[in-house]
Structures are given as C-alpha cells and as structure tokens.
C-alpha cells in the first residue's frame, strides 16, 4: 500500500516535471511554427541583425572579462574570511542579485548623469547613453552574480589544501595560483559562461543607462524590444533565436564542465 502511494507520488512529480519542460518547448515551437518568420537565414546575416549582435558580443565579452577579473579576488576573500564584517560585505554584494535590473539601471543613470557623471565627462569619459554605458550596466548587473558563483567554487576547496601547498614551499600567491585556482577550474569556466550569457541577455539596466540608440547602444535584447515596438515580429524572433542559441550553447558548456571532474 505504502509503495503504491510512493509510486503515485513519483509519477505525479515526474509528470509535473515533463509538463514544465513541455511548456517551455511549446513557447519556442509555437513562436517559430505558427509565426513562421520569413527569410530567417537571410535576415540572420543581414547588417541590421549583425550590428546589434556584434555590439552585444563585444560589450558582454568586455563586461564579463572585467567582472570575472574583479570577482576572483573578491570571491576568494569572501570565501576565506569569515568575520562579522565580511558577512555585512557579503550582504551588500548580494543586493544587485535581488534588485530589479531596471531599478539598478535607474540608480546607475542617476549616478552617471549627476555630478559624478559630469566629473567623468570632464576627463572625457561619457557613460550615460553611450557604448560605455552598455558595458557599465552589464558589468554592474553581473559582478555580484560572478562573486556569488565563484565564492561557491572557492568554498568547495578546503583551505587546508593551501596550507599543505605552503608547507611544501609555496608562497601565499603561489598556493592560490598553483593549487586553489586549478582546483576551481571547472567552477571558474562555468561562472564565465553564465556571466557572459547573462550579459548578452541584459536589458533593464542597459536600456536605463545607455538607452536604445540603434547602432550605438542597441544590444540584442533591446533590438527585440524595439522590433516589437515597431510591430516587426519576424525581426524580433530572429533576435530571440540568437539569444536561444546563446543560451543552449552556454548550457551545454556549463553541463560539460560541471560533469567533467578529476576522475576523467
């Protein structure tokens, strides 16, 4: 009797899982089968698609690189220091993850169009409504996430490995680069991919700080928004398709690295 109930519960949860997966597949299939974007491949390689794609790729690559470079030492420090003050810092770092991107974008806009923005403008750095604004917005959104992801990776490495490396002759930095970093290699690669994919898909903060200027600040998500605004569903679906491909490629990469272990 009991095993029968368990079986029913199992079939119910399995059924629910398949339903959710089917729901997401249905969204994609519905969009591409019923709307049938004409000349999909012709449009895909046209300049009006390639330009935002290039802009997105460049901005997200720069923002990811910057955020990961900053996140590695920050995450390591957070992982190894367990003081009360570090808990406070940890909470501050987490705020952008919970804050709506539009809200963070509006804070960025107020900051960079206020006195700080004017000061930067005087030295030739124009952040608001510029390509630099796209990078700053993406960077601001993903850095806290990168720190969180990398902190988990560093947490998984027992600090005693570093102690062992040091007793074997490593300096503090050698212990980090020769022992800790190689041990979080898979987590690091997964974090880079997630951060990069999140940058490509960033919309709220980018549109608030950099605006939606075609050719200058028009990233793929902004293109989708602009295409729908001008009732160009075909164009919007092509950009959505590009984002879908980025998501699938990212997911496959993450799955590959999270499954790859020292056993291989």
């Amino acid at each position: 009797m009991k095993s029968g109930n368990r079986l029913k519960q199992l079939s119910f949860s399995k059924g629910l899982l398949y339903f959710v997966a089917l729901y997401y597949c249905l969204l994609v299939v519905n969009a591409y089968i019923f709307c049938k974007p004409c000349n999909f491949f012709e449009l895909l390689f046209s300049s009006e698609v390639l330009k935002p794609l290039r802009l997105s790729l460049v901005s997200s690559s720069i923002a990811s690189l910057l955020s990961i470079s900053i996140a590695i030492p920050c995450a390591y420090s957070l992982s190894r220091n367990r003081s009360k003050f570090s808990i406070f810092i940890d909470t501050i770092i987490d705020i952008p993850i919970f804050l709506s991107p539009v809200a963070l974008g509006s804070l960025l806009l107020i900051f960079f169009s206020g006195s700080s923005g004017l000061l930067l403008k005087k030295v030739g750095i124009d952040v608001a409504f510029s390509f630099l604004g796209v990078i700053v917005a993406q960077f601001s959104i993903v850095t806290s996430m990168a720190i969180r992801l990398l902190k988990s990776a560093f947490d998984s490495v027992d600090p005693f490995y570093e102690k062992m490396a040091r007793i074997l002759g490593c300096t503090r930095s050698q212990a980090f680069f020769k022992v800790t970093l190689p041990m979080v290699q898979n987590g690091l690669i997964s974090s880079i991919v997630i951060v990069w994919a999140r940058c490509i898909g960033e919309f709220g903060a980018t549109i608030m700080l950099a605006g939606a200027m075609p050719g200058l600040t028009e990233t793929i998500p902004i293109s989708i928004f602009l295409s729908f605004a001008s009732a160009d569903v075909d164009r919007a679906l092509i950009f959505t398709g590009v984002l879908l491909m980025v998501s699938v490629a990212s997911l496959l990469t993450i799955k590959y690295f999270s499954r790859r272990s020292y056993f291989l």
Partner: protein
Amino acid sequence: MIKLQDISLKLGNFKVNNFFMNVRPGEYYILLGPSGAGKSVILQTIAGFYKISSGKILLRGIDVTELSPEERAIGFIPQNSFLFPNLTVRENILFAANIHKIPFEKVKEFFEYLINILEIEYLLNNRVVHLSGGEKQKVAIARAMLLKPDIVLLDEPLSSLDMPLRKKIVSTLLQLHRETNITFLHVTHDQEEAFILGDVISLIFNGQIEQTSKKNALYFFPRTLNVALFTGMGNIFNGKVISVDHENHQVTISYKNYCFVATLHEHRPSPSPSTAVFFGIRAEEVMILRDGEPLKPLLEPNILKGKVKSITEKTATHTIFFIDDREEIELEIELSNLVYRRLELFTGKSIQVSLKKSSIWISPEDFNKKYIVK
C-alpha cells in the same frame, strides 16, 4: 630540534596556555591524547598555520615564531592526505621539488627510495582520486619527505585506515625513521600506535601535557589520574594512606574495610600518612589463584575472596568481572584465552584474586592538579 617555550594561543573557545615541549634530534616523539585535547592545534602551530599570542617556537635552535610555513622547511603529513586532486601521484610527490625549482636528477635517488619503501611505484601515473585511503596516505608520506626535511610532523596519519593497512604503514614509518634519522613528531589518539612507534610519549589533555615519559614509564607509572585512565588502568580506587614503611619500601592503603600493601618505587614520590590517594591495578596484572595452590609471599597481603560476576569474551582475551564477598570491590581481570580455559571459570564461580603489591599504582590526589612539564 623542536622546542616550544611557554607558548599560548586561542582558537575560538579553545585555549593553549604556557605550553612547553622539547623534541630531541632524531627522536620519534608522540603527542598522545583524546580528541579535542589540542594535539593537532599544537602540531599545526609548529607548522606555522596558527599564530601564537606569546612564547617562542624554536626549530633546530632557530626562533621561527614569526616565519611563514614555507620558511620553516618541515614535512607535514595530514590526517586525510590532502593530495592535490588535479595532479597525478608523481606530480604530487614532486610538488615541493617543482616549487623550489629543484631538477628531478637531484631528488631522483631519494624519490626512488621513497616509492620503493612505500611500494607505490605502480601508482605513479594515476590520478589521486583513483587511490584508496592507504595509497593516498603513502603518497602523502612520500610528498612530505621528498626534500629530506630534518623534521616531519604527522597529524593522525593512520586514523582513517583499517587495521591491516595501519600495521603495514606503521612498520614503514618505523623503517623510514630508522633509515633516515629524521625527527618525527607524531600526533595520535591511538595508544597502540603510540607505543609501537614512539621513543618518547607526551600525554596531552585540554591543551596541557600531563606526562612525558618513555613508553613503559607512561604505562606502568602514570603520574596523574587522567594518564592512568587514558592508558587503560581498569581498576582505580580512592583510598587513604595508613602507613609508610620506608625501610621495606612499602605503603599500606585502606579502602572501605580492606587494607592493601603496595611497593614504593624509587623514582615515584612517596605519599604521606593520612593522605588521600588514588590507587589501582591494571586488569592484566590481577592474578586469579588456583584452588589449593600454596601462596607465594609476594602475593600474600592483598588477597580478595569473591566470585565471578560476569564474563566478556573478546578475540584474544576474556574479561572477567569479579566482585568480593562483602560486595565492596569490583575488579576487571584480563585473561588470555589459554589461561581462561585452564581456570575453567564461569559466572558465579567462587574465586580468590591477588593484587601483586609491586603492580599497584599509587598517585596522591593532589598530583592530579594540572602541572606543566618543562
């Protein structure tokens, strides 16, 4: 070789105060104690993993208190091997040589000696995650010793291994110590391991050493109640000294309605009359007298009549629980299986036991106040 002078440190709620220790060159020194006594903290402090708040750490006569772990030039073998999982066995063993940029040719001879003695040649190209616990620990030993440090610290290296493997590694450690003459400081909670390996054993409780002795002295002459209990003194009682006979080197102790005579040992402090003492006898030192057998004069004074209360069967021995006729004293008696069979014991059987006076251990109660071995 290793000298800790009056060191103090605090780690969370755990404190070590005014700790002294002295390990001589070439010694196999054991720091023995129960879990949570602070053995590993002391070892890791010597390695430089923890900062001390006061005192001095001297290695080879040099003050290393302020030096970082990499500047202390010592080998360290941790409890769980902590091999680097992204490297092969060979890369793990050669890690220190690579860090110090020492060419393989210079370490080749000792590298080969280590892999032969530890029997790990067939593992060299394996990833460490494929190794068993024992194999990992052997690789950790080779990794720690590759550069021939004159001091090796071992932090419970055998505690996670099964008995046959433990025996094998114990004999390898003894061989390594004998052939290299490196100073070993080994931390363990396992008495047997300590007694097999150690030249000198220190017993540590709550961050303080209570006794440092050669192994036999620790076993037969524990200085405190803690040491007596930890080294397995099965029968301990709280008595009172009636008289001390310095001429015949013996002391008479009363316990309930009994009087026991014990030998005074030369190097043991003599208790004063009327003082309270702990006295005891090891389970394997209690003798069961055969019916009708004439008594030897040595056994005469301390004879108890009673019966077998219960019997516990073990692999190589039997533990007999004895209770006297007045039901005032219970004793634990350890017998080999052979002796047990000869005596034909069973629960309820009336027997006589003797506590040999030279086997009775005495410790004045005030000895059990914590003291520091300097």
